[in-house]
């Protein structure tokens, strides 16, 4: 039935724009018997905010993990600034300027705001091996001010900050680390309306600045339309829709998801077809816990 299914949905083929910073072509990834990604084609333009949508288990997180070097694809190619890109580790991806921000992993609770911002890039009193805390505080304050994050005190442990502030600092750390492609995995999860708005504001400001390009996994279509330039919807391991947000609507996005759900249900009841690829992520090894 694989052919029938493929025909029933639209698959976005490789697309590109002259100012692409990242291009993904025909990426596939299996975890044992389950297929997480079948044929994913994606591109990200410079300074663009791309919203990545999809139901739970559609393959969003797998895609993000491949992009940031945490996992490797089985087949397909990626291009970073036009050059082949095949990171073997998170460090290698980071060196190439791609960094993912995971809400749960990002921050060290017991460390201060500025130590978090400078983790692994500490300033030292060279040639002595001592931390230049004053310098880091000053630079951290300047960096936070620059992207408009208002943290009253940067010498407190981040454990004492709100969810929104923490997420903002995690994003700031990534921006501060000279990453030019940032992957945000559900940045608004478990966040109040006001805090969520702060993060979307931050994304908007970064977009206005034009230095970084962002791929953001979101669940709320209103947020997507508000903060993103373009939206890609991943469904059943393929990109089923790729449109500028100006040309789509909450209704269209909702319809696509509902139709997909109905078709999956009909297949389940109509005949004993193979399990949909969608279950892949749940059963995959997921050491990051995200």
């Amino acid at each position, binding site marked *: 039935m694989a052919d029938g299914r493929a025909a029933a949905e639209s698959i976005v083929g490789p697309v590109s724009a002259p100012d692409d910073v990242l291009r993904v072509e025909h990426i596939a990834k299996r975890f044992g018997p389950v297929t997480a990604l079948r044929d994913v084609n994606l591109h990200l333009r410079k300074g663009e905010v791309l919203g990545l949508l999809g139901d739970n288990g559609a393959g969003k997180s797998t895609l993000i993990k491949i992009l940031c070097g945490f996992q490797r694809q089985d087949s397909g190619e990626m291009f970073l600034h036009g050059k082949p890109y095949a990171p073997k580790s998170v460090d290698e991806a*980071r060196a190439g300027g791609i960094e993912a921000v995971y809400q749960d992993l990002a921050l060290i609770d017991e460390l201060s705001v500025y130590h978090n911002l400078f*983790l692994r890039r500490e300033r030292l009193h060279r040639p002595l091996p001592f931390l230049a805390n004053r310098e880091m505080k000053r630079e951290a304050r300047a960096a936070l001010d620059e992207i408009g994050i208002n943290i009253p005190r940067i010498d407190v442990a981040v454990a004492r900050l709100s969810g929104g502030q923490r997420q903002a600092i995690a994003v700031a750390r990534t921006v501060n680390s000279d990453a030019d492609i940032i992957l945000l995995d559900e940045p608004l999860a478990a966040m109040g309306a006001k805090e969520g708005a702060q993060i979307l504001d931050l994304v908007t400001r970064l977009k206005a600045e034009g230095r970084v390009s962002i791929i953001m996994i979101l669940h709320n279509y209103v947020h997507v339309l508000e903060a993103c330039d373009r939206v890609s919807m991943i469904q059943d391991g393929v990109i089923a829709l790729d449109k500028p947000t100006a040309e789509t609507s909450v209704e269209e996005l909702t319809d696509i998801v509902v139709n997909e759900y109905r078709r999956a249900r009909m297949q389940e009841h109509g005949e004993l077809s193979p399990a949909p690829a969608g279950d892949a992520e749940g059963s995959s090894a997921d050491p990051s816990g995200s």
Partner: protein
Amino acid sequence: MAQAAGNPGASGTSTTPPAGGPAHARRRASLPARSALLERVLSLREGSIIVVTLLVAVYFSLSTSTFLTSSSFKTLLPFFAPFAILGAGEVFVMILGEIDLSIGATYLLAPFIYYKLATAGVAPVLSVLMALACCMVVGAINGFFTAVVGISSFVTTLGMLFTLEGLTLIISHNEPVGMPDAQVTTTMVKVTHVINGAHIVLTEAVNHVSTFAKVLGEGTYSELVWAVLIVIAGQVLLTFTRWGLYTVAIGSNKLGAGEAGVKVKAVMIRNFVLCSTAGGFVGILEAVRASAVEPDVAGANEILFKAISAAVIGGTLLAGGSGTVVGALIGALFLGILDDGLILKGVNADYQIFYVGLAILLAMTINIYVQRVRKGSHG
């Protein structure tokens, strides 16, 4: 948090900078007048145990006539200096969220390695260094099994505890030994005195202890000096270097620290090495101080518990992520004052352990209460 210790005055005030403005330009307003000395002390992580220790010291000063004397201070030293060093090492492992149960066994083994080497003709200082190198290997093995193989440090170091204690019994043949180069020798010296213009020659007994032994534990203040030096060095390492920062980071969020690029396994192994080395070093100090050492396995385990107690009483969390080396010193001081004070009060030896146990429970209760007050003062 460790760095808060270096910046006690920073708490209590909070300035909200105007958005977008250069915030650092606005210096923090001077501390309000209500911030008295007590509050400053309390704003330290070790603040509460400092208060509790002072209370205990005041109690013994008032209830005994001998506690506040210099000779009493000298008898106090061996009760606390060794545990300050052991606690300092243990703090580095405990901040990681791990524990080293083998520190007492390392403490026991190291002087026997020293003895074997020194009696085989190796120079004393070199023997000490080689014994410490063995302790570092012990720490590296602890770290390897914990960080790389992934066995819980409780189990890893428990295994190491029995292994090392067994090894000590084997190589010592379960016999005490005198420490080479740490023996007191007495010689008779003729000393000429001038009394009322007349020269009188008298024979006097003079005790000799090698400089080596004086430095490594036998001198009255040797252990205290080592303890203070090691605690200061340890606290600087913890608060002002990347090593310390990464230690706190791993204890607080191991996965996140790894994600950020911290070499988690390397830091963990290093901290276990540090802890074992501290254990071995104190073992040698104590053996030299006593000029002899016996393979006392039960005593070694008591040493272990006191070292961990010193760290925990000093504010280091068993769960990791937080702790200070200075706190371990104060925790050790608290335990030492308790031991010494109870002896001075003439408490029966059987009752003493009983009272120490109760006192630890009481002190930790007060400690937690004071901590709550402290947190409250932060607002």
